[in-house]
């Protein structure tokens, strides 16, 4: 007996006892629930969140458990740049403009601003009025100067990094010599007097922007979280260090704690003044929002389906889990498979393959049915024929190239006779197709394209690049030419739902840069660029929309892009959540700002 109590056996007995006890307890739980708490209750129904509010409720309290496989570069709303962080950070940061909280909604309304900007001077001057009564979480009243500071610090300071650069590019374009002094300006060091004539906040309730060039979509720029006010006095003391660690809330929630790369906790912000929010853009229904970060995507799906987590911040379920969800009526009733305004596409390098006949041959040679199968089948999206998805206001869907190997061979022969230098010594058009390392669906799609092209005599190799460095390979003109990168597969979604958001970086000259272009086709077409300028000079939405559709047609005529699918994203929301809806306020996913728990 004495021997059995020696150290090692004792621990082994304890471990065994724990395992046995837990096994018994949990097997009992398992048999009663059929797979976890989330699976125990029937959800509101499959694929309904884009069209109706699910589990509508005004109940407050409870803990909402969110989860993500991603981590944040920063919790400073001004320097983040992803749909998921924008969706989440809108819970504690209040931008000037925002998307309405309706199922499927994509219209912008005033958030901190009373409404859309008042435009004058042919789209060069934009005036916004602040809702009265808004405060920071410390009770300090918000003024237009705080909005101005938020924009300045995130665009002209040492903080620059991962945030968007629209304000910088629109207000002080680097191509305009009048703004040379802004290239190296750091408002923390140099102050912001230089902006007095650009962003006028002499009236604390109004902010007036003076643009050097017309920009008809400025209201959309004002939806960026860089317009969420920042207390200048506190932030400028230490060049943003303190603020970046714990941003001061202007929304209905505030940050309770943040552990970088691990966890973010939000609690209701008692200082939030609902009177200052006539459009009801912010509400704190949960008593605690616990966001787990950096969880492996397989583990994340497991936790979602087991009911340990209520929703992801916006990512899709892994394709491997689609069947599991769709074959289980309970899980399926908690799932949505909705379009998310993005496309899967492949560029065709117009510099490497300048002959349009060759590019059109590629368009005709790609069998999009096989590609769609690799991108999740009909669950993963519908076949795309052009660039602008239907969710973009004014977008028109039109037929372009359908799979036709015969036509592809004819065009290829014509190209060979006109541009023989594009073909290798064996007489074949040869190049590489790029996909991202961590995107198996796109890799498989690249292989399907490779197979399609081989059918018409085009020789290709599939090559992979890391996600974070993708644009440094596919977007590098010299590298692309030297390594014969003919096609690059990627997903693309707009920063805001207009033709500009979708097309500016993808197919115009603005998307070509030395350090990493987003315009992987390197398309620099005068007609496209002029049409874009025409659209931006206009403040009339219908004129803008017509111009974007014309660009869509022109790009397809030039065969610079092979649209593959209009992507659907399969997302899971636990039946525990209330007020569930998918809309643009949720960056195309679940609108986190209005969610509650039962």
């Amino acid at each position: 007996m004495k021997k059995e109590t020696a150290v090692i056996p004792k621990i082994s007995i304890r471990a065994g006892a724990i395992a046995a006890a837990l096994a018994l307890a949990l097997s009992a739980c398992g048999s009663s629930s059929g797979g976890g708490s989330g699976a125990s209750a029937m959800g509101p129904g499959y694929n309904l969140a884009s069209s109706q509010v699910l589990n509508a409720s005004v109940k407050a309290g409870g803990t909402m458990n969110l989860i993500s496989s991603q981590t944040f570069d920063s919790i400073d709303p001004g320097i983040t740049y992803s749909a998921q962080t924008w969706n989440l950070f809108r819970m504690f940061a209040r931008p000037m403009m925002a998307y309405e909280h309706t199922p499927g909604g994509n219209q912008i309304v005033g958030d901190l601003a009373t409404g859309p900007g008042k435009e004058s001077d042919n789209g060069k001057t934009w005036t916004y009025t602040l809702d009265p009564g808004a405060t920071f979480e410390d009770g300090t009243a918000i003024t237009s100067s705080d909005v101005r500071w938020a924009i300045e610090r995130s665009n002209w300071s040492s903080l620059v990094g991962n945030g968007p650069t629209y304000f910088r590019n629109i207000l002080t374009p680097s191509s305009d010599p009048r703004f040379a002094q802004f290239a190296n300006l750091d408002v923390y060091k140099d102050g912001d007097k230089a902006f007095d004539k650009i962003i006028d906040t002499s009236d604390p309730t109004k902010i007036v922007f003076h643009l050097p060039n017309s920009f008809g979509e400025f209201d959309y720029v004002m939806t960026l979280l860089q317009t969420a006010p920042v207390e200048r006095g506190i932030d400028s003391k230490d060049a943003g260090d303190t603020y970046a660690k714990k941003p001061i809330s202007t929304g209905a929630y505030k940050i309770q704690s943040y552990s970088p790369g691990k966890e973010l906790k939000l609690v209701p912000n008692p200082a939030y003044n609902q009177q200052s929010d006539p459009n009801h853009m912010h509400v704190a229904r949960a008593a605690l929002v616990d966001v787990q970060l950096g969880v492996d995507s397989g583990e994340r799906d497991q936790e979602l389906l087991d009911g340990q987590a209520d929703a992801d911040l916006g990512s899709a379920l892994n394709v491997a889990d689609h069947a599991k969800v769709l074959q289980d009526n309970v899980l399926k009733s908690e799932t949505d498979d909705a379009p998310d305004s993005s496309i899967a596409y492949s560029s065709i390098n117009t510099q490497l393959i300048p002959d349009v006949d060759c590019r059109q041959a590629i368009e005709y040679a790609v069998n999009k049915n096989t590609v769609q199968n690799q991108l999740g089948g009909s669950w993963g999206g519908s076949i795309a024929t052009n660039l602008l998805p239907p969710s973009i206001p004014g977008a028109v869907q039109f037929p372009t190239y359908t799979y036709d190997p015969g036509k592809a061979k004819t065009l290829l022969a014509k190209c060979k006779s006109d541009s023989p230098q594009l073909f290798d010594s064996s007489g074949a058009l040869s190049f590489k197709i790029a996909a991202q390392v961590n995107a198996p669906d796109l890799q498989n799609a690249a292989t399907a394209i490779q197979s399609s092209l081989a059918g018409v005599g085009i020789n290709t190799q599939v090559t992979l690049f890391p996600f974070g460095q993708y644009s440094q390979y596919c977007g590098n003109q010299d590298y692309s030419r030297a390594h014969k990168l003919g096609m690059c597969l990627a997903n693309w979604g707009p920063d805001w739902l207009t033709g500009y958001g979708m097309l500016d970086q993808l197919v115009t000259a603005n998307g070509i840069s030395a350090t990493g272009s987003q315009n992987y086709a390197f398309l620099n077409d005068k007609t496209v660029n002029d049409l874009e300028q025409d659209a931006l000079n206009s403040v009339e939405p219908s004129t803008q929309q017509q111009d974007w559709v014309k660009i869509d047609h022109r790009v397809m005529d030039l065969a610079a892009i092979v649209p593959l699918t209009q992507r659907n994203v399969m997302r899971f929301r636990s039946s525990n959540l209330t007020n569930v809806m998918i809309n643009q306020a949720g960056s195309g996913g679940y609108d986190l700002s209005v969610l509650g728990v039962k």
Partner: protein
Amino acid sequence: MTTFLVRRAVTAVLLMFGVVLVTFLVFYVVPGLGGRTTDQLAAQFASRDPSPEQLAVIEHRLGLDQPLYVQFWDYLRALVAGTDLPPGSGAAHCSAPCLGWSWRLHESVLALILDRLPVTVSIAVGAAVLWLVFGVLSGALAAVFRGGLVDRVIRVAALVGVCLPVVFIGPLARAKLTWLFPSVSYYSFLHNPFVWADHLVLPWVTLAIGYFALYTRLTRSGMIDALSGHFIRTAQAKGLPRRRVVWQGLRTTFPTVATVFAMDLGLLLGGAVLAEKVYGLHGIGDLAQNGVDGQDLPVVLGVTLFAGLFIVVANFVVDAAYAVLDPRIRLD
């Protein structure tokens, strides 16, 4: 003893310097030889289409605007004396020992490591106890009953265990055993030891299976050698009880088992990458992997250095323990 300690300390410092140098070369220099430019590295920390001025700001913030030898020297100096951080880093100063400042998480690498250390220690120590106890016991049993049914069963079990890597067992266990074990997550041991153990059983078992197999084989072969030794035969001839004979045989395997155990534990404390990823636990391995994915080089460098420290300490402990476990070893 003092000479031994001093000698080992000096060796440890030199080893750690080597670890830092090699890691620095691998992550900072080798990609450059492959054609990656400083601008390309900095662009990964910028948004779409950064201007040259923005890239310059980022390069200054990350210290990439300095020559490589200056970057290396600055790193070493910060380890000893701390360093002031450039604007935009998220803080003004990184105190000694400064293992670096994360480019992505804007936090001290040491703070990030210490924040995750309890998770990794919990996984490693729990699994180590399991594999050590069961591995040594089953190895001893197999040796004692050599050639019998028990030996054969244990040998087959060990063979299967060796053949099953964590990447196989982990996802399988997570997918199929969640009904049997509680959900895996980390709760502080100090908060509630039972809850802590509850939620780590699965990673412990997953990790321990492979090691258990190794320790079984190690103990079995060591004991078989010992039990066929002259001293055992002499002991048996002199009438020593079988229980004590077996104990003496087992004792001879201790130095070897201790050496391997210390190294294995040291390695695991540097990050049980696979187990942490499979079960979504935020330990040091998870931090390192995210660092590599995100090109967060200070995190990679800091974690490598920290993991190296464990190995060096483990080596040191083993050397010292040898003196106790094996009387033939003398320190001076």
